[in-house]
């Protein structure tokens, strides 16, 4: 299957030598003040498999990950108070295949704000540089921001990455 699956096999964007040589960018973490509602949101709505090795910890991997391959784990840790609430531009991103999926997700979340502990659900709109994407953001009870965006074709990212660093002049003429 073409697309982002090929990304690890390419040599793009890499330094010839580095101090640390990580195997994988493999996880992200965030804090939650309501681990029960975080699990409900992530499991029932966003499509993560969740495990709780301790009452105050939740590990998640997305059900779209390929069996046997690598995957990105999100870890949520229960805290009494989130010390640094996220800003909208610091979010976790979920892609869906079409604009209709984006609209349906927004409607669903708006209809279930209390159940899933959502503080704000924004309207879908054209987003990002050049208004090239269609997405919306929402904020949960722990001040964690999520984005749901339309991305039917991962190949567009392969082209972007394969191009390497963009020359300023070149982009200005596009």
């Amino acid at each position, binding site marked *: 299957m073409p697309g*982002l699956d090929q*990304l*690890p096999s390419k040599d793009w*964007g890499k*330094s010839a*030598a*580095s*101090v*640390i*040589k*990580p*195997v*994988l*960018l*493999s996880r*992200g*973490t*965030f*804090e939650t003040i309501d681990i029960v509602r975080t699990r409900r949101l992530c*499991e*029932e*709505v*966003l499509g*993560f498999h*969740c*495990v709780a*090795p301790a009452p105050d910890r939740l*590990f998640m*991997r*997305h059900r*779209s990950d390929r069996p046997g391959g*690598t995957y*990105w*784990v999100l870890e949520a840790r229960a805290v009494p108070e*989130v*010390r*640094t609430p*996220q*800003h909208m*531009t*610091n*979010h*976790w*991103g*979920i*892609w*869906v*295949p079409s604009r209709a*999926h984006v609209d*349906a997700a927004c409607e669903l979340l708006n209809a279930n704000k209390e159940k899933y502990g959502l503080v704000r659900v924004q309207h879908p709109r054209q987003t990002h*540089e050049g208004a090239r994407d269609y997405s919306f953001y929402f904020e949960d009870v722990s001040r964690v921001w999520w984005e*749901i965006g339309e*991305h039917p074709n991962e190949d567009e*990212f392969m082209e*972007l990455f394969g191009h*390497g*660093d*963009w020359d300023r002049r070149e*982009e*200005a003429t596009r």
Partner: protein
Amino acid sequence: MSVQQPLIDGSVFSHGTMDSRNPEKTQRFLQEFLGIRSVRKSKGTQYVWQGGRWIIACLAVGSNVPPRQGEGFRFGLLVATPEEVDAAHDAAVAQRAQWEIQEIRPVRVEGDTRAFWLQDLDGNWWEIYHRPGHLYDDLFAREAALA
């Protein structure tokens, strides 16, 4: 572990985000110190990845924007051995000024995970860690067996 279909159909978990205040300097740190991949567009947005099909979108923000990513919001880099965690920590301490690393936490062991955290020049937090086995397969397999 839930076997029910999620309410949002056909979704893929795709990315996280972080800030950069000097994209060229940030890119050097990502590539040459942390050892992860980055391509940079002219307006400063970078796309960052290492070894998987997930990315971090690194957004250029003004120099007056304070760090917006708390210590509880980190990105984790898996290294191959526990010794590499210690070596990375030593390197971070030794090269702290060169890379403008703001904070370096001590190496700690929690269960079978050996890790330390650092706060980079842009205020983003990174966790360098090692955990034996293939990622978190054991946790998910145990939960599946109990379901």
